[in-house]
């Protein structure tokens, strides 16, 4: 069995699972947020059980529209807050919250070998820890909150091998944008992606989270990494419970094996209106921008801010550009503050926001007008994703976004730093 199959089998009453098979899977953590929890709560009430199956395995995070942007979103969060208090589940509100997929690993709430289900498509982020994590809908989460398990179809696994060492300014974001560019937005539909190879072994945890995070952008059900020393170091101070490390079997069967030599890979930029429109940054000439967003569950972690600060240090944001920087969690914010990164950003003329999903999904805190263009470290550049249907979003890593904020056009960090 592959890594994905091993984890799933261990969460059923079966010894073996095979791709295509329908199984009931026990969940170690069940997640929802201020957009998806209200429907999940309503559906949970319809099931007719008084209590959730285990309050220690259910987490709700207010992150999409908080601090609340309007009355309607405040009502949604209130409903979630009241439910959390009634059920005694794990709950993060303003002041303690972060963007869920940065927050849960940081708090040690998701660990290697776990099955995590979440009413948010980017739940696949936790694959970076060697967990099987997948997004589903609110009704799924309602059922999982009641029973502790959920139906799944066992996905086939596609193995990706990344050969070579990554160049300067090339990050996990570039590997995943390049991959989606190669296989398309449904290139891994219904499948589990398994990321391996020399470049992956060298990739820091923050870059691994970025890659797993965007597995959904290739249509995948999950995007997994094997547990190694970096993973163990990451969870060492965070884990508050036992975890299990699963290894694939020698006879693991893959649906596909895809290899890339990434030693000469440039930073990638995905053009509107698909993450699959990936191009090397050097191909984009005189592409003026109005906004640069650095943050989100994809690229709002400490390393992302460190890289952005490295580029912005001693420079000024272009007068035409609004540069919006969003630390993904309160801890990332505090660490960035202590390291002096926040001062670098503010001095450069960027604005630093409280943790929120905000502009990534066109919620608030950086909405685009018709005809405007933003470079963004987020995950989707669909029509209207960040505002007007006539605006454009270009996806990149934090170094490219920071460099572009300085020059006012989409730029390689090489243009502002040597």
């Amino acid at each position, binding site marked *: 069995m592959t890594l994905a199959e091993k984890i799933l089998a261990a969460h059923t009453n079966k010894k073996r699972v095979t791709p295509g098979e329908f199984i009931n899977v026990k969940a170690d953590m069940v997640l929802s947020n201020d*957009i998806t929890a209200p429907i999940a709560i309503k559906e949970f009430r319809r099931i007719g059980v008084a209590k959730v199956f285990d309050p220690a395995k259910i987490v709700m995070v207010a992150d999409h529209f908080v601090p609340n942007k309007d009355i309607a979103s405040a009502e949604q969060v209130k409903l979630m807050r009241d439910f959390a208090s009634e059920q005694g589940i794990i709950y993060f509100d303003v002041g303690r919250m972060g963007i869920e997929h940065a927050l849960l690993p940081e708090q040690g709430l998701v660990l290697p070998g776990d099955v995590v289900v979440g009413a948010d498509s980017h739940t696949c982020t936790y694959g970076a820890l060697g967990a099987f994590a997948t997004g589903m809908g609110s*009704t799924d989460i309602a059922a999982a909150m009641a029973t502790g398990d959920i139906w799944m179809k066992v996905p086939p696994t596609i193995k990706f091998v990344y050969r070579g060492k990554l160049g300067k300014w090339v990050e996990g974001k570039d590997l995943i944008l390049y991959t989606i560019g190669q296989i398309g937005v*449904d290139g891994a539909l219904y499948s589990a992606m398994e990321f391996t190879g020399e470049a992956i072994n060298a990739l820091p945890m923050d870059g691994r989270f970025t890659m797993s995070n965007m597995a959904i952008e290739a249509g995948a059900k999950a995007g997994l990494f094997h547990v190694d020393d970096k993973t163990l170091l990451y969870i060492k101070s965070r884990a508050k419970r036992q975890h299990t490390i699963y290894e694939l079997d020698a006879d693991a069967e893959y649906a596909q094996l895809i290899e890339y030599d990434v030693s000469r890979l440039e930073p990638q930029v995905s053009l509107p209106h698909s993450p699959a429109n990936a191009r090397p940054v050097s191909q984009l000439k005189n592409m003026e921008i109005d906004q640069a967003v650095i943050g989100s569950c994809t690229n709002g972690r400490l390393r992302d801010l460190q890289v952005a600060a490295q580029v912005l240090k001693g420079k000024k944001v272009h007068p035409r550009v609004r540069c919006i920087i969003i630390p993904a969690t309160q801890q990332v914010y505090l660490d960035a503050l202590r390291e002096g990164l926040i001062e670098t950003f503010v001095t450069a003329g960027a604005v630093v926001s409280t943790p929120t999903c905000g502009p990534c999904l066109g919620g608030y805190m950086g909405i685009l007008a018709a005809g405007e263009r933003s470079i963004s470290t987020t995950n989707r550049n669909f029509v209207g994703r960040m505002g007007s249907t006539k605006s454009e979003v270009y996806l990149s890593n934090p170094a490219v976004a920071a460099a572009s904020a300085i020059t006012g056009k989409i730029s390689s960090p090489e243009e502002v730093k040597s």
Partner: protein
Amino acid sequence: MLKGKVHKYGANVDTDAIIPARYLNVSDPAELAKHCMEDIDKDFINRVKPGDIIMATTNFGCGSSREHAPLAIKASDISCVIAKSFARIFFRNAINIGLPLLECSDAVDQTKAGDILEIDLVGGKIKNLSNGLTFTAKPYPEFMSQLISAGGLIEYTKERLVKGRV
């Protein structure tokens, strides 16, 4: 038997197109339906009639996990969505809430926007009344059929709890 007019779209219709995130501060289906397909087809809500059918090519419903997307479609009185393939979370969500989906490449290739279809969900039979062609959709796996006949995931879960199968 379902019968309705086809609204046809291309590949990779994402859930931001089906219901933009700026409207996700509410979850009432009727309210969501007012903005269904707004960013790719502004006139959809004015054209759609009860029983109508949404048709698309590949990867329909990709992107976010928002159940608001199938809810908005269902509350627009769309009777069925037919596509060559669906994104997996959208597929789960639709089945869970009782919005019928059919996978049928031939039907998509040989149907134009505005054609009238007659659909028998039980056998997955699709008849195009505008050109006389008939098609059979890919059958559901047995587990999915159980889920559908139970009336969706909530009813299915209730049954499991009653029978002590948890």
